[in-house]
């Protein structure tokens, strides 16, 4: 047997690869876009980061979403409210296609993220998931070290060796963004499961950042936390606003009111009303919205 032709390691080649991945478009297709809006409130017509068109979804024969048309503006925090079981999580989960893990889920209609149909046949769903971050109700750090948690998504997108200095920088930057760096900088190699719930939830946000997600989905991110931790996470969400588009499901009216730019109210799988948060809370168009906000049903 002859020797296998192993290519000489080429430094330039590597650099080119890394460079490429930076310019790569969200889901592997060519589109042009700007997603860094410095001050979203001054932008009179922000683009839509997420747009659903006649989105319907079935769990087996049970229809959970009915023709939902919903636009989430780029760079803003949009809250999604509604009584239990109305389909908030379902809507959220169809935006990163994580619903598909159940074989019996069927979707109709379209979901566009930054202009791209994420259900198009050419779209790779791991690309969708890595660029649309998700924060869950119960903090779910992975059972590895804090450092590995933060780098997990990054390593998936950049297989092969990454210089330790690059990694260190990513870890520090991400932890600083969620205000955990000072607390955790000396225990990066401790298990993430040893952290408090608040820290765990912040870590779950931090681990999204190295892959620079376009949109972050949060499904009741504070419901497992005490009031202080809730306030801390809300502050954090407000800090991330602008750089990331955030869509957050919440049962907490006060939270929706103080921590979101826009608010959408759902009822029984339908989108009832969507507008600026102050409008929804002060002068809702629908009686149902007013009743829900006043706590007449939940």
């Amino acid at each position, binding site marked *: 047997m002859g020797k296998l032709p192993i290519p000489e390691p080429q430094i330039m080649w590597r650099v080119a690869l890394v460079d490429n991945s930076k310019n790569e478009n969200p889901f592997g297709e060519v589109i042009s876009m700007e997603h860094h809006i410095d001050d979203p409130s001054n932008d009179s017509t922000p683009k839509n980061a997420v747009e659903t068109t006649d989105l319907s979804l079935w769990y087996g024969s049970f229809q959970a979403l009915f023709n939902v048309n919903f636009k989430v503006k780029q760079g803003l925090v949009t809250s999604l409210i509604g009584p239990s079981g109305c389909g908030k999580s379902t809507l959220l989960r169809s935006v990163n296609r994580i619903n598909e893990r159940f074989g019996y889920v069927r979707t109709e209609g379209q979901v566009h993220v930054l202009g791209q149909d994420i259900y198009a046949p050419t779209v790779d769903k791991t690309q969708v*998931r*890595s660029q649309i971050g998700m924060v869950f109700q119960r903090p779910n*750090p*992975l*059972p590895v070290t804090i450092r590995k948690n933060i780098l*997990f998504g990054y390593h*998936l997108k950049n297989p092969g060796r990454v210089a330790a200095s690059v990694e260190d920088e990513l870890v520090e930057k991400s932890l600083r963004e969620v205000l955990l760096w000072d607390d955790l900088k000396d225990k990066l190699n401790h298990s993430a499961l040893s952290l408090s719930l608040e820290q765990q939830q912040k870590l779950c946000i931090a681990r*999204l950042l190295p*892959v620079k997600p376009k949109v972050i989905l949060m499904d009741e991110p504070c419901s497992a936390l005490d009031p202080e931790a809730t306030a801390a996470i809300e502050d954090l969400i407000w800090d991330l606003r602008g750089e990331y588009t955030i869509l957050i499901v919440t049962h907490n009216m006060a939270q929706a009111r103080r921590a979101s730019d826009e608010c959408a109210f759902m009822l029984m799988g339908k989108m009832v009303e969507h507008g600026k948060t102050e409008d929804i809370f002060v002068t809702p168009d629908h009686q149902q919205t007013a009743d829900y906000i006043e706590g007449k049903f939940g």
Partner: protein
Amino acid sequence: MFSKTSQNVRNDRIEGRWRTLFLVMTALLILPVVIILTLLIIRGGPAITWEFISGFPIKGMTQGGIFPALMGTIFLVSLGLVFSVPLGIAAAIYLSEYASDNKLTRIINLAIINLAGVPSIVHALFGLGAFVLFMEFGTSILAASLTLAIMALPVVIVATKESLEAVPYAFREACWSLGATKWQTIRKIVLPNAVSGILTGVILEVSRTAGETAPIMFTGAAFFLPFLPESVYDQTMALSLHLFVVATQVPNVPESLPYGVALLLIMLVLLMNALSIGFRVRFRSKKKW
């Protein structure tokens, strides 16, 4: 207000009776084990010497050691593992991580659980038909190991599935939401956290197959061989069959010999069990959920 009433007194009495009943049942269960072990140690203990472990049987198996049988058991079990562990783990991963939850999957799962309960003599006859005759391996270590592997498979699958399913679903969801494929999730998160359970299951299964007699009797274990096997196509002696032989088939065996063989076999099994318990304790102390 808080003093004993006659109802309380009656309850206490009934409570006491049930407690005693359960205690007696437990004692009855433990007693035979203790008796067997004591008997084995007293009668077989003196037989276990270095010559016994490292020597060949001599004088029509009435004297000498059991070395070829011990080695045979080790060969059979390890080769069996080589077949059953990769196959079993792969099947378990498919069934619990990939297969969609439909009727067919459920039937397969049920079938596997039932397979674990098939009597070993049935496996023995299957092995004889499939490996010795149909595939023409002859009575050989290969055929016997494959038979043991088939027998161990369902247990390996069930143990692996259970350990995989013990890894919280939230971890998988976290991985997927970060853009991991199923295989990346399994390799990086699920398997590392399930490996202790899998190992425990596998070792327990090894200790069970080490003692099996029927499946190897027809397929590769020999009554008596004065030499060690040279390839997987040779026959071999095995501890379990040797015990059966010296206890019932050979005349004029000194009483301590079968006890010694039995003690050695039990020690082998207990050692394996201890190993598996050790793993379990060690890994459990590391887990945090």
